[in-house]
Each structure stands twice: as structure tokens, then as C-alpha cells.
């Protein structure tokens, strides 16, 4: 499973041991521990699990090893600094950490920006009131999503993975695969439809 060797091997063992003995604690719990009590042990667990994955993500997107290492460290430092902003009803831990890595990569390597909404803007259309029983929603989904993504038909998975792991417009993906742009879009639409079903199921509603 792990291609790593040497420096982090003991860390990986430690991580696996933690995963075996404390199976009831989730990454979301650890993130909340970091937010609530600046829990360093919880942060270290998150680090051993996510740092090697964040670095792998950055390498896939074309950073060289040195850049990927530096940026990974900045991502993990932000995980600590922004932990109080994490909302486990909206995103699983992996998703939240992914968005931090995505944004820092864009800041570091792309010339243009990725504008985002301001949650405190008085002009923002407010979120609809959610029933209390939906607070575990995002956690429930994130535990199932890995399987759903893995089980996507190969042609859909290819365009999804290329969207996330190659900083390319869909037109460029179409060209690389030798298929029409419309086909890329329809495959993405089908994949999104399946993901939406998982979210819909978890919320107990049909979207």
C-alpha cells in the first residue's frame, strides 16, 4: 500500500497502529480536537495521514519535489491555523484539506486568481435552515464517497481524475483524450449525478 520507505516508515507504522486501536475516532474528530483544544497529538495524527497525500497531490499537479514539500508544509500549517473555521456538517476532513491544498497551489503556481464568495458579505444569499439531524451528513457521505468514486465507470473516472489532477481546461482534456468537448462534459455530468445521489441519500431527500 505504501511506496514510502526510510524516514516516514516508523510514522506510517505509528499511523496504522493508531488507525487500528482508535478506529472509532475519525479524521473529522481529530480536526475538531485541534480546533477545540489545540491538541497536538491529534494534529500529528492528521499530519501522518494527510501530509504524504497532500504532497502526492501537489506532485501530480506538476510541482517539483522541493516545491511540493514546501507547499505541503504550508498546507498542513494552515490546517492547524484554520481548524476553527472547519465545519464538519459541510465537508469531510479530507475534502476540507483538499480545498486548502487546491487554493495554496493556485496562489503559488497560477498567474490568475480563483475568486470565492465572502461568507460574511451582507449581500450573500443565506443558507436555508437545515434540520439538526443533517449535521453528520458530510461525514457520512465522505466515508462512502471513496467507494463511489472508485466504482465510477472508467471513462467517467478518467475525466474526473484529469479535472482534479491536471490543471487543464476541459477543452484540453478533450484534445488529450481525442474525444469531443461535449463528451467530456457529459461524462462529468454523469459522474456528478452519481455523487449527488450519495449526498441526496445521506440527506434522506431526492435531489
Amino acid at each position: 500500500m505504501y511506496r514510502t520507505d526510510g524516514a516516514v516508515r516508523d510514522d506510517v507504522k505509528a499511523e496504522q497502529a493508531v488507525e487500528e486501536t482508535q478506529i472509532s475516532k475519525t479524521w473529522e474528530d481529530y480536526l475538531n480536537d485541534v480546533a477545540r483544544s489545540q491538541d497536538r497529538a491529534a494534529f500529528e495524527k492528521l499530519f501522518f495521514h494527510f501530509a504524504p497525500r497532500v504532497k502526492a497531490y501537489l506532485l501530480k499537479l506538476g510541482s517539483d519535489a522541493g516545491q511540493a514539500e514546501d507547499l505541503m508544509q504550508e498546507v498542513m500549517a494552515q490546517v492547524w491555523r484554520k481548524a476553527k473555521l472547519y465545519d464538519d456538517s459541510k465537508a469531510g476532513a479530507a475534502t476540507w484539506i483538499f480545498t486548502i491544498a487546491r487554493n495554496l497551489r493556485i496562489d503559488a503556481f497560477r498567474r490568475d486568481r480563483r475568486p470565492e464568495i465572502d461568507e460574511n458579505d451582507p449581500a450573500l444569499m443565506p443558507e436555508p435552515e437545515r434540520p439538526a439531524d443533517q449535521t453528520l451528513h458530510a461525514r457520512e457521505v465522505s466515508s462512502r464517497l471513496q467507494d463511489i468514486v472508485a466504482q465510477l465507470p472508467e471513462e467517467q473516472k478518467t475525466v474526473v481524475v484529469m479535472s482534479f489532477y491536471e490543471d487543464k481546461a476541459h477543452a484540453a482534456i478533450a484534445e488529450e483524450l481525442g474525444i469531443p468537448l461535449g463528451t467530456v462534459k457529459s461524462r462529468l455530468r454523469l459522474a456528478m449525478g452519481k455523487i449527488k445521489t450519495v449526498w441526496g441519500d445521506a440527506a434522506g431527500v431526492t435531489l
Partner: protein
Amino acid sequence: MSIKHHIADDLIMAYAAGDLDEGLSLAVATHLALCAECRARVREAESIGGALLESIAPVNVSTGALQSVLSRIDETPQIVRPPKPSVQPSSDIIIPEPLRSYVGGDVDALEWRSLGRGAYHIPIHKGETSARLLRIPAGKPVPDHGHTGRELTVVLSGSFHDDRGVFFRGDVEDCDDSVHHQPIAGEGEDCICLAVTEAPLRFKSLAARLAQPFIGI
């Protein structure tokens, strides 16, 4: 008024993945500010990023990486979620963030440039795509145009209609180069919208085409 015309799945996915250029991202984010439903769709798409991150093959990090991060976090305190603003969400503001920062204020503060025939614009961004704010006088048409690429139009106030429907505040019209349309602003109120195009618009009439380099649409 509820929003009827939303952002397409491929744009939601590209925005979530982080590979949408700045102009189109601005159109997406402007719609998101006005549409909680599509904000949820972006979170759904981002959850794919989370699932992929979980299943990626981990790579070796440097020996001192954890120590280095721990020493970084000692230097700066955790960011605290700012308290909810005491003001109620306001419908008085026409231009939501992040667009408001791009144009430097809400509609009253803007310096519009005339396009002739009562229409005005403010160029915002030029890159892979170009973004502009447009103000079309009530009841008047936007010059009849096709596109050499995709065009996203997000309505901020007033409305416009064409053969594909009626578009009110928050609605997005998403046209590709196969669409040749003539949007007309609704009666009674000027239509202010954000228009983002992948390539320069292609006007149909000779007069509009000759004016194109001049007015910069």
C-alpha cells in the same frame, strides 16, 4: 424570486477542482453568492477532491517535516471564525462579493463607460476570458451577437430575455459558440449583468462589427 438558471455541472466541477480560469470563476462565484443551492453543489464536487486525496498513493515527506510545521504553527495563532455580522443579510446591495471588490464598490459607486444607445459597461478582467459589467437600458436589446467561445451572463439587477428564456437576478445564461441570440432587457428597469466571454463577441451586423474594436465589447 427564486433562481431558475444555474451553473452547469462541468463548470461546478472545474471550479471545485481549481482549474477554471479567473473570469469564468468570477461568474461562478457571483452566482454562488446568490444561490445557496449551487454552493451545496460545489461542496459535493469538492468532496470528490477529498475522496481522491484519500485514495492517492502517499509519498515520502522529508524527515523534519512535522517539526518544521510544528515550529511554524507556534509562530501564529489559530484563526477564529469571525462573529456573524450584526447586520441582517441585505438585499439593498446589488453587487455581491467577490465581484464588488473587483469593480470597486456597489452600483452607485461605479464609473460606467458609455457603449452608445444608452448602454454602459465596465471592463473588469482580461485573461483567458474577459469579464465586464454591462448595463442595458430597460426594454432595449444587447447588440445581436454570436460567440467564438463560451459566454456566461449573470444577472444582478433587472432582467433580460431571449429565445432561451427570461433571466432575473442570480440567473445565469450559458451560451456556447453555437448560440446566436439577441437578449433584450426587461421593461421598467435597466439590466445590470456580469458577462464573461471566452473570446471576443462576434457581432452580426456590419455596423456593430465595425464598432467592435472601438467600443471594446
